[in-house]
């Protein structure tokens, strides 16, 4: 599939689906680079020195789990600071990284393998989980990703596997491994498989003093197991669990499940059979190469047809990040974005970052988020506050978006917003409301135009 002829609309679509939407210069950059080359750039992330510089003040990002634990012992407040820095890093990366697809996929895979930061001892390992288990593999092999997750402090703790032993089985991880991480709930496993997988993972534990994964042979169920009809011989030890991960990552249900979920995130709430089939085929034929699965989905006609449809409703997280990018904001703290008072934070929108309680993570279906009057009003109030430059930790210089245009000229600013944020697709009723803002009050008309455009129904979809 050759992408459609590139124009501002298609460039904006690519930025919206393979990233968090356009920053003020991004549509022009994609047009200049060429769509296919821009996509290849995204599939092969490169060093981003400007991003690294922005992240440098967040010192806790470099801590190992043992360091996080020992700092906590010295001062219990340190974990709160570290989790705030993790959130801030999440927003700085999403808003500023040139490797947008990598950020979208890191968010996607974290959510796919969700852990809850409020859970203990999970929270001491959440930062390393994202940085070491998830991020390095989002364009790599699924089996490597699955293995890194299974061996991680955060997942081991969140789904209780570290508590499971031959004498006292805990089947939480075993069930979610099949239902949520690999096969899908209808992927063809039984309660007996859940119990057998739980037995296979007995002995996988945490050394809480060392702050690391450990295998406890004495807690492992050494007898043979049968998983999905495959026999795991007796006495294999830790290899039992690795064999289960091999089996699950090669299973056709996993290929379809992953393709469906990626299709839902990147394309549509209801991805077409063509998208799922192409994605699953790529998954299987490349032995789970996740970059190839994305490439296959992006290569379908159904993907590009979406550029000319009504769009997919943004999740609150996508909405907030895309608004920050559209306005050219500089983020230095995520605190107000996530938990600020006044009913316009991600908490009020129902999606506080890193706080999805359930192993299912957040829904990737737009229609699960809107209609919802409370959450929708919080979205509107968020962007209206953003343009009045009152969001703590976020610096907004409207010149980044409107350049040398007259900030008092509503019509001129409306035209710029249409071009640089909407790729020329701003609906007539939105443009006409934007052009008609008054000049009263302390806020220049141009600021109001941007607030209204971002609060408009057109900006709720991507």
């Amino acid at each position, binding site marked *: 599939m050759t992408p459609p002829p590139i124009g501002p609309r298609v460039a904006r679509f690519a930025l919206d689906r393979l990233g968090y939407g356009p920053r003020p210069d991004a549509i022009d950059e994609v047009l200049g680079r060429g769509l296919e080359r821009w996509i290849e750039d995204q599939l092969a992330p490169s060093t981003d020195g400007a991003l690294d510089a922005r992240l440098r003040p967040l010192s806790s990002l470099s801590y190992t789990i043992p360091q996080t634990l020992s700092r906590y012992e010295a001062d219990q407040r340190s974990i709160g600071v570290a989790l705030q820095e993790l959130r801030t890093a999440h927003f700085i990366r999403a808003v500023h990284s040139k490797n947008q697809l990598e950020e979208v996929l890191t968010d996607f895979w974290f959510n796919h393998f969700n852990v809850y930061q409020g859970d203990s001892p999970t929270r001491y390992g959440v930062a390393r989980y994202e940085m070491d288990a998830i991020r390095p593999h989002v364009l790599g092999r699924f089996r490597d990703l699955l293995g890194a997750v299974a061996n991680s402090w955060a997942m081991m703790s969140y789904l209780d596997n570290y508590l499971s032993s031959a004498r006292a089985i805990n089947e939480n991880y075993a069930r979610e491994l099949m239902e949520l991480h690999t096969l899908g709930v209808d992927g063809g496993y039984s309660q007996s498989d859940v119990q057998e997988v739980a037995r296979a993972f007995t002995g996988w534990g945490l050394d809480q003093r060392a702050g690391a994964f450990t295998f406890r042979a004495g807690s492992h169920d050494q007898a043979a197991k049968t998983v999905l009809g495959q026999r795991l011989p007796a006495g294999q030890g830790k290899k039992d669990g690795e064999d289960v991960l091999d089996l699950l990552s090669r299973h056709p249900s996993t290929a379809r499940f992953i393709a469906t979920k990626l299709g839902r995130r990147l394309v549509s709430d209801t991805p077409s059979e063509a998208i799922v089939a192409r994605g699953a085929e790529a998954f299987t034929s490349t032995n789970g190469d996740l970059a190839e699965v994305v490439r296959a989905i992006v290569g379908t006609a159904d993907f590009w047809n979406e550029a000319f449809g009504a769009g997919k409703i943004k999740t609150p997280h996508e909405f907030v990040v895309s608004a920050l990018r559209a306005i050219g904001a500089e983020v230095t703290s995520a605190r107000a974005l996530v938990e600020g008072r006044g009913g316009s934070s991600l908490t009020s929108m129902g999606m506080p970052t890193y706080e999805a309680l359930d192993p299912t993570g957040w829904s990737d279906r737009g229609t699960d988020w809107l*209609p919802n009057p409370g959450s929708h009003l919080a979205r509107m109030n968020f962007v209206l506050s953003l343009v009045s430059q009152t969001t703590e930790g976020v610096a907004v210089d409207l010149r980044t978006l409107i350049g040398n245009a007259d900030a008092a000229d509503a019509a001129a600013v409306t035209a710029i917003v249409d071009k640089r944020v909407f790729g020329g697709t701003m609906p007539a009723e939105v443009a006409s409301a934007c052009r008609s803002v008054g000049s*009263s009050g302390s*806020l220049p008309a141009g600021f109001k135009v941007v607030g209204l455009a971002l609060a408009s*129904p057109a900006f709720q979809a991507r």
Partner: protein
Amino acid sequence: MPFDPSRRIFLKGAGAAAVGLGFAPSTLLTRAAEAAGVGSRVLVQVFLRGGADGLNLCVPHGDGSYYGLRPSIALRLADGVRDLDGFFGLHPGLASLRDLYSEGLLALHPTIGNAQLSRSHFDAQDFMDTAAPGNKNVHDGWLERVARQVPGEDVMQLVALSSRTPRSVLGSHPDLVLQDLATFSVRAGTGGSAWSAEADQLLRGMHASGSTPAYESGRAVFSAIDRIRTTPALSSAPLNGAVYPGGSAGSGLRQAAQLIRADIGTRAIYVNVPGAFDTHANQLAANNAEYPTLAAALVAFRRDLGSRIDDVLLMVTTEFGRTAAQNGSAGTDHGFAHCGLFLGGGVRGGRVHGTWPGLSSGSLNEGRDLRHTVDFRDVFLSASRWLGVADPGQVIPGYAGAADPGLFA
């Protein structure tokens, strides 16, 4: 049948007579229901997300097997379990509900379920919310179907007090989903109130037509803003000295009471309670953290409503109960039958309903879970009839209903 104050028996008797005409045309039935005074009835569903364990909520202290199955997490009367009827007792953290039980306003049913409910949180919650277990082609919510059976298309008829839209209210009827009634208006930061008013007007104009979800959702925002602004009762303080705890249950039920007292046509309210109910490990500590807050919220709700509690039926539900035996981590894994808690004038209170299947190894489902004795869909159907919906047959797709569980009157 337990003792009920006579006035409530009279009201309930009239409502029951009206809905007894199940074969009558729906318009006649609606009129009969209105004549019987059920037009002001309100159904409140409180959903404990995570699969709350029923056996440590409604404790079967009279069943010896319970103690054998849970050597370190079973609760005894000596631990503070409040006895209800000589066989069951309330978790110590719920002890304050004992007075509501004595008053005849509270009932429990410890064995609610459905054979097709899954052990997956996600599927089981969806199946409860759609009331279509095993059928993934039903997407709209059961409360949404209830709301469609109530005359009118008003956004206030069905309110979900939740930051996320629960599937139970998804569908074509306009519903209000929000966390906080008190701050529900366009607020444009420091640009001043004139700018907020201007933004409100211009955003209304933008959303006036357009049929995609973003436009529809925007219109619902503004109709809700208008309704809330013109209803001062929605900001009234709790009555009768009621004090609500913080958290989702407290803030949800405080606002549910405001909606009920405001009399603006709200007929169904959903209160989402995410919490530490998925107790795979250290269950005692988790329950001790959650239950006192839940009980305090229910007690405050009852006090706040005064005699209006007669028009209310509140159901506390969860997606599944948990394994009968404790697991290796002083917790319990995903099970089957769950315990429902029912509060209000619509409830046949002061008793634990249902038959007890027992916890001996032979009586457990798949050798591991408490069996259910009533289908949750029959509970939902019965609640819909109590509410006086025009055609209860439309509430649960493809299910005619078994015997009425007799929870409500």
